[in-house]
């Protein structure tokens, strides 16, 4: 490339030589283009408007980089083949010390290229960063090793039965992120413990969550090329990309990309509905609370369960699996009945540590609503009631006949564990 520049200035060169250099230049350019066109196929879906821009920028850089790559490798391979030392040739090469013009050329051309890339990147960055109109605000809370998303909804007011009296009262929780095509989203993110980083590869956007700070990022989801209408909502992984401890790799959840507002609102409505009108049955209510992700149980525990229109599909590995927990609960600590074991495990996770796992679960406060980890007592009771029915050995009908826990007993136990500030 550089060499071509110089030769054009020289009138002394034969047309054939100029032609050759032109051919090489064009070959390099075309080679770069080919590399740029082929490689981005390796990117995942473009599920956000930002993805288009970022991929385009990447493609441009890859094209330029590809040309440089071909130039360097070309010269290298050519030299190795052509100038390799022949057997018996003990002469030295020509004593050529350098060339100022070439120095200028290969300082200036990269500088100009780099400058161009800076300007282009800057434009893309400004575009991505720019606040959009009518952004949907979603609050993100991260903890080791999971995510909870909180959505604003005006139907929710303080004291509407979701139990939380604090600022989250007007928000409903979800373990997954739901967005729909064309609706810009602003994520307002906080972490409870260490640094995490929010990344959806298909949306190309990443932002760290820093202790003591609130960070923000913007996504504009879009329809994905080549996806049929019935494939929606598309499901992508949200992964943590900042090392956060033993469960870092397992710290992921999903983002659901709805095709349109209607489908998204259906999900919102059903979520709000379940917050406003929780099931009477404590078992089902416990399941609803867990499914909402509000306490982050899904972050560490695995559990597959579906009943009465609700499903839990968790596959985290950092904490002990909850699959069939009711069968084991009564035998974990000798002398402790199942319901007490389960309840105590929520109240004081360190009381009994399942072998092979660390003592990393949050210490929940049952009374003080201002506590960092507040879990109202009724919720704890409901969760315990639900967990008492999570059995592999018995069918729901059998459990109805012979429950594994005594629910009345549970209420009396729960009286024993109401002191706040127990540590």
């Amino acid at each position, binding site marked *: 490339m550089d060499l071509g520049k110089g030769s054009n200035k020289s009138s002394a060169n034969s047309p054939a030589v100029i032609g050759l250099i032109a051919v090489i230049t064009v070959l390099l350019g075309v080679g770069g283009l080919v590399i740029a066109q082929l490689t981005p196929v390796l990117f995942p879906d473009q599920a956000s408007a930002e993805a288009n821009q970022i991929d385009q920028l990447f493609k441009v850089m890859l094209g330029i980089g590809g040309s440089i790559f071909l130039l360097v490798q070309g010269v290298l391979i050519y030299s190795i083949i052509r100038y390799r030392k022949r057997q018996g040739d003990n002469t030295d090469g020509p004593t*050529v010390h350098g060339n100022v013009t070439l120095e200028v050329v290969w300082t200036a051309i990269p500088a100009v290229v780099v400058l161009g890339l800076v300007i282009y990147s800057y434009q893309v960055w400004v575009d991505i960063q720019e606040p959009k109109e009518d952004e949907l605000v979603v609050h993100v809370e991260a903890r080791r090793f999971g995510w909870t998303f909180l959505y604003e909804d005006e139907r929710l007011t303080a004291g509407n039965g979701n139990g939380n009296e604090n600022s989250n009262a007007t928000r409903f929780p979800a373990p997954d992120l739901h967005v729909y095509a064309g609706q810009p989203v602003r994520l307002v993110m906080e972490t409870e413990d260490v640094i995490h980083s929010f990344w959806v590869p298909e949306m190309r*956007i990443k932002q760290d969550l820093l202790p003591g700070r609130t960070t923000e990022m913007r996504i504009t989801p879009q329809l994905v090329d080549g996806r049929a209408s019935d494939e929606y909502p598309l499901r992508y992984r949200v992964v943590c990309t900042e090392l956060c401890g033993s469960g870092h790799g397992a710290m992921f959840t999903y983002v659901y990309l709805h095709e349109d507002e209607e489908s998204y609102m259906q999900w919102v409505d059903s979520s709000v509905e379940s917050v406003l009108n929780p099931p009477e049955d404590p078992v089902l209510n416990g399941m609803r609370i867990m499914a909402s992700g509000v306490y982050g149980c899904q972050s560490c525990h695995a559990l597959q369960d579906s009943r009465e229109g609700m499903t839990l599909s968790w596959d985290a590995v950092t904490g002990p699996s909850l699959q069939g927990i009711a069968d084991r609960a009564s035998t974990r600590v000798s002398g402790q009945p199942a319901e007490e074991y389960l309840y105590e495990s929520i109240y004081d996770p360190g009381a009994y540590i399942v072998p092979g796992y660390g003592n990393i679960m949050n210490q929940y406060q049952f009374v003080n609503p201002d506590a960092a980890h507040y879990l109202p007592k009724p919720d704890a009771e409901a969760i315990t009631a639900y967990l008492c029915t999570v059995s592999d050995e018995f069918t729901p009908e059998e459990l109805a006949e012979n429950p594994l826990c005594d629910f009345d007993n549970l209420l009396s136990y729960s009286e024993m564990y109401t002191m706040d500030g127990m540590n």
Partner: protein
Amino acid sequence: MATASYPMDGVAGQVKRPALAEYFTWSIDHKIIGVQYIVTSLFFFIIAGALAMLIRWELMTPEITVMADGSQYNTLFSIHGTMMIFTWIVPFWAGLGNYLIPLMLGAKDMAFPWLNAFAFWLLPPSGFLLILGFFIGPAEAGWTSYPPLSTIYSPDGQTLWALSIHLVGLSSILGAINFIVTIKNMRPPSMGWFQMPLFAWATLATSIIVVLATPFLAGALTLLLLDRVAGTTFFDATSGGDVLLWQNIFWFYSHPAVYIMILPGFGVLSEVLAIHSRKPIFGYRMIALSSMAIAIVGFTVWAHHMFTSLQPELRIPFMITSMIIAVPTGIKIFGWLGTIWGGRIRLNSANLFSLGFLSLFVIGGISGVMLAAVPVNIHMHDTYFVVSHFHFVLYGGSVFAIYSALYHWWPKITGRMLDERLGKIHFVTTYIGFLGTFMPQHIVGMQGMPRRVAVYDPQFQDLNVLISLFSFLLGISTFFLLYNMVVSTVAGRVAGANPWRALTLEWQTTSPPPAYNFAGEPVPFEDPYGYGTDASKAYLDAMESRFGPSPGAEEERRPPSGALPEPQPAGD
């Protein structure tokens, strides 16, 4: 004062090495210390390499299968990274510099021999502390050790980790002060700044960075240790601290540290390519000055490691500086291409690794520019794309340069040649293993696999299995080198003073050099790369008549008809 018992007479054709026991003593001879550094760092390289193999074994499945849990996996890559950086690449360059700089400058020793030994002996304890961490609850916060994970959430091994890095840091600073003083003050009067070998330039630039950047790490580690053991909260956001303070101070050091690891490699390349292509280095002054430019600009780019945590409006300035630093690097690469163009390229192991460096480093450089662009970075940050990028510059770059340096200067250090056939096998397996390991990592990174995970999306398993298989080849390839080194030390072909017919001063004495390096005052050939001139031929011939022919070079000078017998394999 203890010095090595070298022969002073420097009789040709003989290899007189210091006794083995000297290497285990407090010696203040720079050549002993150089070898001590090199062997110690190789030892840690093997350990850290074994950890890498374990990492790749674990990653063949998307679940945790080999390790007990995620913590154990985190420990693996934390110690792998820390060891590779602080007890392998950095001290290796210190060792090579130690061995070569006084020789290249015609000096009898480093400026401060005692300090030199002290700096080395800080290294084994620090490596020992790192390993000790395994037994008392290891460090698992990665080599970057971001708080609060590394403070309130980490076991006691993290304290040992910090102490260990503190020691290495001190060792580097003392070593670097020594290098700067030696290079500035101990050249022969006739060797001006711009007649120094380029390796000396590279070491100078590296040392300046070490002196000015490593203290940032020392300061940050002091605060981290206080946080861990004294109950302070410099980095604890819940108690008035600031997590970004660590990231900033850490990268004040650790970005320049990238150049600490690669600049000596650039120096090696400038030596090896010129000597083995039998041509002067193309554009000496630009290659020398670009090292200094990199050292300076390298101080202004640190925050590109924080593109996803830094305030958005602060990211742009660092994008600009990070991209600008590609320019001096480009100058070097084009200069090297100019050097080999039209030369007599000897495809021996030393040169193969340098040419391999050139071809791989370009890829690392290009992906580096991509990562410097903020929008691309926020997709690629902390993914396998980044893992691939820095292995391309640190393995494809630094380690290839280290290999090249070993093949090139081994005859000088031990007096015996490394076996060429094994060397070529080593090169081919390393090159293929490397490409197979790290090329596909770009792809998994782009597609969505974050780094530092033992549990990953099962869709990436196929590629990860492929990567792991190639990485095992890469692991095995190292043994060709180790075997070669052992066999050569015992029974390699005798090298002679100057098997490569090189012009720089370290070759104008016996191999290995005698105590105090030169019998009498060395006479430098003042154009260190003046190959192809009559004067250089006369100088080399004169040197040959002084030290006797270099039998190690037989292969190089074999006439076409095959009049000489095949070169004798090692051991004969």
